């Protein structure tokens, strides 16, 4: 999988608090090829968000430190790359969708304001320039792309005027503003109710298919993983314990932890997890 767009190699991260150093990631490796939908699962606190933040360069470095490893993007190591170049990539070539649509939008600015600001500075980093009008046009275009029905109205709204599903779409739209090749989504839709969640997942799936995005989705909802992703990494206490194509993983989890995780999921059939495990082939 060396042709992967994003390739995390043996990443270790530790946090230093109160003078005590606590490792959080132990040699995590994963690959995200273009035009693929990769899921990263694991229980709460297993290190998913830390992995994502390391990739995006969002870790607050005083408490955190990357003790080893490399993050290759398009074959170049993000960690050793000059800061300026890296900044050029984040928010433009690689972008992310935040977990909580309720709190990830600035409540005091309109959607248009927030989105065009992002676009303005993304352009500036890439040495492009666009007039206000053009920027606004692009904003509306992207809002339409995420199937927002009335882009103009949404653009003029403050976040509080939008429903959770709409906000999540706005967040996705923000990530898509400067046509990224890699999209990292941290638990998208978990804060929404099922019907809305289903719509968002469908949207992401379509984006991968239509625009050839590489999508890394972080979640702990195995149902979501199974229904949308192509390939899964399972993480436990900062270690990737298992990786496999989605269908394979669900059909025959190799590691006990994965199995336990799958077993814990309540079933729509109503079978108690324990009973089901016995019934499984």
């Amino acid at each position, binding site marked *: 999988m060396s042709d992967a767009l994003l390739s995390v190699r043996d990443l270790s991260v530790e946090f230093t608090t109160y003078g005590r150093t606590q490792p959080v990631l132990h040699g995590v490796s994963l690959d995200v090829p273009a035009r693929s939908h990769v899921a990263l699962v694991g229980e709460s606190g297993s290190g998913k968000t830390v992995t994502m933040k390391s990739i995006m360069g969002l870790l607050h470095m005083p408490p955190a430190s990357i003790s080893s490893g490399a993050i290759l993007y398009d074959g170049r190591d993000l960690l050793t790359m000059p800061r300026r170049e890296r900044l050029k990539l984040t928010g433009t070539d690689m972008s992310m969708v935040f977990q909580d649509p309720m709190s990830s939008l600035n409540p005091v600015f309109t959607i248009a304001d927030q989105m065009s600001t992002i676009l303005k500075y993304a352009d500036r980093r890439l040495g492009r320039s666009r007039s206000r009008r053009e920027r606004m046009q692009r904003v509306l275009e992207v809002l339409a792309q995420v199937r927002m029905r009335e882009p103009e109205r949404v653009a003029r709204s403050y976040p509080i005027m939008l429903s959770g*599903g709409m906000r999540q779409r706005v967040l996705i739209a923000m990530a898509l503003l400067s046509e990224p090749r890699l999209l990292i989504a941290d638990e998208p839709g978990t804060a929404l109710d099922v*019907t809305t969640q289903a719509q968002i997942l469908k949207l992401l799936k379509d984006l991968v298919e239509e625009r050839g995005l590489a999508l890394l989705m972080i979640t702990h909802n195995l149902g*979501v993983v*199974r229904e949308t992703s192509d390939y899964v990494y399972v993480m436990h206490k900062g270690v990737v314990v298992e990786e496999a194509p989605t269908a394979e993983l669900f059909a025959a989890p190799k590691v006990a932890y994965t199995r336990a995780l*799958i077993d814990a999921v309540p*079933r729509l059939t*109503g079978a108690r997890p324990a009973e089901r495990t016995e019934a499984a082939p």
Partner: protein
Amino acid sequence: MNARQSPLLEVVDLVKTFPIAGAFGGRAGEMTAVDHVSFSIRRGGVYGLAGESGSGKSTIARMIMGLFQPTGGDVLLSGANITGTLGTRAHSRQVQMVFQNPGSSLNPRRTIGQSIAVPLEAHGHPRADRRRRISELLDMVQLPASFADRYPHELSGGQKQRVAIARALAVAPQLVVLDEPTSALDVSVQARVIELLTSLGRQLDLTYLFISHDLSLMRNFADEVGVLYRGRIVESGPTARVFEQPEHDYTRLLIASVPVISAEEEALRPTIPLIDGEIPTAEKLLALRESQRATEVPKRT
């Protein structure tokens, strides 16, 4: 429905309207959050209340708890109307609630022990015996007695949820209202909490009103469910029946949207038509159905 036992809780024709606050605090109108809802729970049963966010689930729970005064309708407990006694001490002895978010339902400035002691104090549990009772309760939810001296921020989400359960059970209520008790937890912790609730229910002969929008969980835990849509119960019945043969379109949409992890489950899900190549929203779907009442639901492939 099990007719073997008389219902413990009966909710009759419950209505709740809220004023809609306009900008700058004026009253712009009214919205009906709960619209003539009736259901009953048999003694020892688990009644699940499902529905999308904002459909009125918590509002019903809060009316049963006396945190909201119903606009109309009654709440009967063992046949006695408790609408007037809502929020009183006698009421709190019979009905208890575990709140949606374990973090915010514990006072951050009080220790776990102090929090658990609240119902004991309120109901005149002898002071000398409180300490013992607290460890007993903690033990019941499988927490070490030393947790009594900790502050909520020192506990994990699952632990906090268990403390909340212990506190709700402190006065041995008959009915426990669980408002999305696991939504903030991770699957593995969630499974443990549900297990705990099941065993405590059996042990203490509790009746649960279980509120969630996690349908898979509901399928496992409840023995009867009601599906709430915009303040109205659109469908109710024994769990298996509702899940296997959903009658209402909304129920179907809901079940169809649940992400699942196995093929059997998938087979169980009804399919729903895509509108404009998208999964429709509930309103859209119902509007569509309204216009083509007679048409059969096409199966999704």
